[in-house]
């Protein structure tokens, strides 16, 4: 059901010229997978760092018939997700949902839903720092050249050094990937657990960095490879126990502290996935 729209604003807040400008940038991004396209990021009524890039991307691609899902840390009910969802209800009047399958457009911060995405769906990531080489080379003029020439040796130096110090690659989120065999890309701070979902995903994945004024994209079915060494292959997190609520053993789990005596439990970070499984009769050891 569509919500009533806030009067006095254009559909989805941004004016049509701005949407066109962002859509042009997105088209370029789709055409060059993983390449960071500069765009005229607008000042949004939400603070920088709180999803202004994702919001602008969503606002420029959303239509009246879209069904929007917003998650933060995998959950639909965290305050920032609630806030962004209510923003779009107000300024676009679109229907919203918590169901991954029912959504046509999903804006996310820090997770990719556990429920596999399908063709026709669009996933919009909020990106704090788009440049994967930023901590190795602070100069934008230099990193642009490095991308153009695929000069990514220094990124492997970092991974090498991880193994020297920790015996393994110690990057755990925002784990760098090579898109379509060329561009090095930050997948935004998703856990590396989610990296394999980027590879040949049937959904369109758009990335928006508002403060840094960049958009980039991974089109459907694009190769996305996580950096690694032949003898230290990329691997993802595993938990010893399944989700305490729904028993899932294939999901990313959050740790919940239960008391001040070290008591804790692990539950799905994707709240919708967890609730769905529980409704279907799956039970973890702490479920009622």
């Amino acid at each position: 059901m569509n919500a009533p729209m806030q009067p006095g604003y254009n559909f989805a807040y941004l004016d049509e010229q701005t949407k066109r400008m962002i859509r042009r940038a997105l088209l370029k991004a789709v055409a060059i997978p993983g390449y960071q396209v500069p765009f005229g990021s607008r000042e949004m009524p939400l603070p920088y760092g709180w999803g202004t890039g994702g919001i602008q991307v969503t606002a420029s691609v959303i239509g009246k018939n879209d069904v929007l899902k917003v998650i933060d840390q995998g959950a639909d009910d965290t305050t920032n997700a609630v806030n962004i969802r209510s923003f779009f209800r107000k300024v676009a009047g679109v229907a919203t949902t918590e169901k991954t399958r029912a959504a046509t457009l999903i804006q996310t911060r820090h997770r990719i839903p556990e429920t596999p995405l399908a063709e026709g769906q669009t996933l919009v990531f909020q990106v704090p720092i788009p440049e994967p080489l930023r901590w190795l080379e602070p100069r934008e003029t230099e990193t642009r050249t490095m991308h153009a020439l695929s000069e990514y040796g220094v990124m492997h130096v970092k991974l090498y050094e991880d193994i020297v110090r920790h015996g393994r690659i110690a990057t755990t989120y925002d784990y760098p990937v090579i898109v379509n065999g060329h561009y090095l890309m930050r997948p935004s701070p998703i856990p590396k657990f989610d990296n394999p979902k980027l590879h040949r995903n049937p959904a369109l994945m758009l990335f928006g960095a508002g403060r840094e004024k960049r958009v980039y994209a991974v089109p459907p079915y694009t190769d996305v490879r996580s950096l690694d060494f032949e003898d230290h292959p990329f691997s993802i997190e595993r938990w010893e126990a399944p989700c305490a609520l729904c028993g899932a053993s294939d999901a990313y789990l959050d740790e919940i502290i239960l008391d001040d005596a070290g008591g804790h439990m692990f539950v799905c970070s994707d709240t919708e996935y967890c609730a769905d499984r529980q409704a279907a009769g799956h039970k973890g050891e702490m479920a009622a």
Partner: protein
Amino acid sequence: MKPTKPLLQVRDLAKRYGNRIGCEQVSFDLYPGEVLCIAGESGSGKSTLLNTLAFQLKPDAGSVHYDIDGLGMTDLASLPDARLRELWRTDWGFVRQNPRDGLRMRVSAGANIGERLMAVGSRHYGSIREVALDWLRRVEIDEKRLDDAPSAFSGGMQQRLQIARNLVTEPRLVFMDEPTAGLDVSVQARFLDLLRRLASELHIAVILVTHDLAVARLLAHRLIVMRHGRIVETGLTDQLLDDPQHPYTQLLVSSVLVA
């Protein structure tokens, strides 16, 4: 015995800073495996010349041609940035006076040596370490230091590590900017010895800038003396040092003898 084909050809090279001359009217040929020293006091333009030869600074006039594998003698000014940068990290090396400029001080010695390998596509951690270990041995650094950061190394070890880091891709030409300037005299001798041995074993051409004629005497086949951005005298090292023609060279040589 000289090979007929030069590796590097420099013609009328000039670099200016505003109205100040960095270097000008510099011409010479460098042959494969040849060690050439550029000597002069500080401010004589020799470091500017070195950076301009390596195209780290763009010259204001003149040309540098390099014999690129598969391309032959190529005007560096005509080379796209991508190819130039490829030269920098594969077929050329650059050893800096201050190891801070030539090394990544906060990553391990192994990573410093391995960087060029990874840049050209090595993706096997174990074999990168093997090669790095081998190079530590060749530059006489204890293998146990493989995982230590160069910030914990002595000055001599840092310079030797710079050598290893550059030579790991077996370049044909290495630029060196006063590599011994920060070293104690006792350490210098060992370093120069190592350098001479590696350059001859691997048949590497070296262009080395120094203010120290003793360094030139030990290492160089040929010597260029610079003053105020220009070449004042050039020739075979022993000849030039034993029988300097230009008054400035005579002054330099005599000041070394006095000291």
